[in-house]
């Protein structure tokens, strides 16, 4: 197993320890935030889907972490739908030890991401991560947007949210200084 994969497995176990009954969507988005907002080098390649940034590699690593006994995943059925709950398992220490150096180095980032985003529901995490994705794409293309323009672009991708709700989430991330492409509404491009 490569060092990078060991680090990723250890990260997944650490997240499961910090946030009990973590959902699979939450794991995906927390990994995205760690990599994008905190520059934690997990090595995933996220692509934007209608349900937010996604990399099948995260699910693949969850599967390996489960095979190694570091986590356990349970399917939870509820009215109209289902989800997956991820919890630490018996061999969590052993799996975490594979990437102990990495966890030590990025422990504060893991704590931060759980504190900032751990309590959001799946729909909000999908929306928040989509906002960050669109923002980073704009920043990379050196395109500056007002918060309303950014919200408009996000709404094109996720039209099932109302525009005021998208704007509210953009404002939330702006307040936390997590967005890079924003310009003032009256400023020049």
């Amino acid at each position, binding site marked *: 197993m490569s060092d990078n994969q060991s680090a990723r497995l250890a990260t997944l176990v650490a997240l499961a320890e910090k946030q009990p009954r973590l959902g699979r969507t939450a794991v995906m988005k927390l990994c995205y935030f760690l990599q994008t907002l905190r520059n934690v080098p997990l090595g995933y390649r996220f*692509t934007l889907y209608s349900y937010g940034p996604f990399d099948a590699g995260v*699910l*693949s690593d969850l599967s390996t972490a489960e095979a190694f*006994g570091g986590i356990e995943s349970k399917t939870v059925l509820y009215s109209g*739908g289902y989800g997956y709950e991820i919890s630490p398992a018996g061999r969590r220490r052993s799996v975490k030890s594979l990437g102990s150096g990495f966890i030590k180095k990025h422990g504060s980032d893991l704590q931060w991401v759980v504190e900032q985003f751990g309590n959001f529901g799946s729909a909000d995490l999908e929306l928040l991560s989509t906002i960050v994705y669109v923002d980073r794409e704009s920043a990379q293309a050196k395109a500056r947007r007002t918060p309303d323009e950014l919200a408009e672009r996000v709404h094109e991708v*996720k039209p*099932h949210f109302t525009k005021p709700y998208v704007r509210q989430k953009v404002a939330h991330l702006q307040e936390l200084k997590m967005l890079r492409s924003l310009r003032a509404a009256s400023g020049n491009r």
Partner: protein
Amino acid sequence: MHLSPGRHADFDDGCLTAHMAQDAMDGSSCGTELSLFLRPVVYSSVGGLEELARDTHRKYEIRCPVHGFIQIDDWERQIIDQPAFQRLRRIRQLAFTDLLYPAAMHTRFEHSLGVMHTATLLYDSIVQKSGELLKQQLAYDQDGLARDRRLVRLAALLHDVGHAPFSHSSEDLFPKRGRGNEKFTHEDYSAAIIRNELRSAIEDHPLNGNTGFKADNIAALIGKGTEAGRAVFWRDLINGQMDADRMDYLIRDSHHIGVHYGKFDLRRLILSVIAIPRDKDDRSPQLGIEEGGWHAAEALVLARYFMFTQVYFHKTRVAYDIHLREAMKTLLPLGRFPKPEGAELKEFLKWDDWRVLGLIGKGRAGEHGRRIIERNHFREIYHTPEVCSDKDDRELRIVKAKLGKLVVAQESAKKSWYKTGNTDIPVLSKVRRPRVQPLSKYSKAIEGMKENNQVLLYVDGADREEAEKRIRKGRQQK
């Protein structure tokens, strides 16, 4: 060559026929009526055609061993005729798999057409069954649906246009993006080729007057961009659990190599795929299947598993992938492919299987080129179970230590492009009340499936006996 209305014509590959769409609809001769739309088009020489008065509404049919006939229109044909797309005729779908399965000689060209065809069938079925949901949750109207149907067709057609020679086998040699460790992918090359080499063919065709597409819209659905807007919903048809790519390659690869592992009930599956609201939590709609089609979905997942273990991750095929990668390293300037940017993109497009095979044949690909010619491949000496636990991982490390420098390569199923990964698919039941459950709740086989994370170790054939001896000795010591 001039085509008269209704006349079938043979093209360069002998498998393309053309006829006027109007003929198909009402059997009439329509030359006079449609002459209003005729315009002269100078074809590239790639298709072997001369200057041709061309009707933008003409339809063409291409024979396909999997789907029968695949219909394309004039716009799509203009794109297909571009050198960047024709290059796919010279890129094999399965690299050197023919050294195990001799008939594995098919190319990315026919697969790309097949993916476009399959994606269209899926799209039409989803719109028919889930039209209301798409209208309510993604604000589609009829025009929007017609527009995105075209977008999905073109994205599916072009999704593989950025492949390197021998498809996935040489992707390790893609250059790094920026200063980090992240490398470009074939999707990045596809998107760059669409935005550059194919821009004019996409944007300037008269039929684009109906959609106003920019090449960027199509590139975004394949690459990482957000220009596709709400159409990112359809990305799952291009790259997802039940995408058209996977459906086509499993059946096509099985057909060509003569195995049955990859076959499943495609028609049933297509009729079962729907858009479903994911849950009460107001998350985005997602692709899933109706309850009646769960066996077809189960068969797709199992087909993928069988094809992975029997074909894509077959120990000998993997060995040839290693030799090919090393041979390519010798052949490529700087040991890597040119970047998908500027002048380097044009250089990249000059690389195809023919060029590589020519250089290997001339003896310029070093030791690994020679091994390919002589079929003297590395030998698998040890493998972990398909689902490797931490105990298996420890044993692997012990074996590696025993073998020492005899190990010439280590390959992991997790790194394979064809890796099996997540297998769950949402299933919508409407018995009594609408309810969504994962496929694993219906299928015990799927419930029991774990991701294949097998690791293979290779040695030189000359060292096999010594390597076996060391492994045996290690086991006796335990």
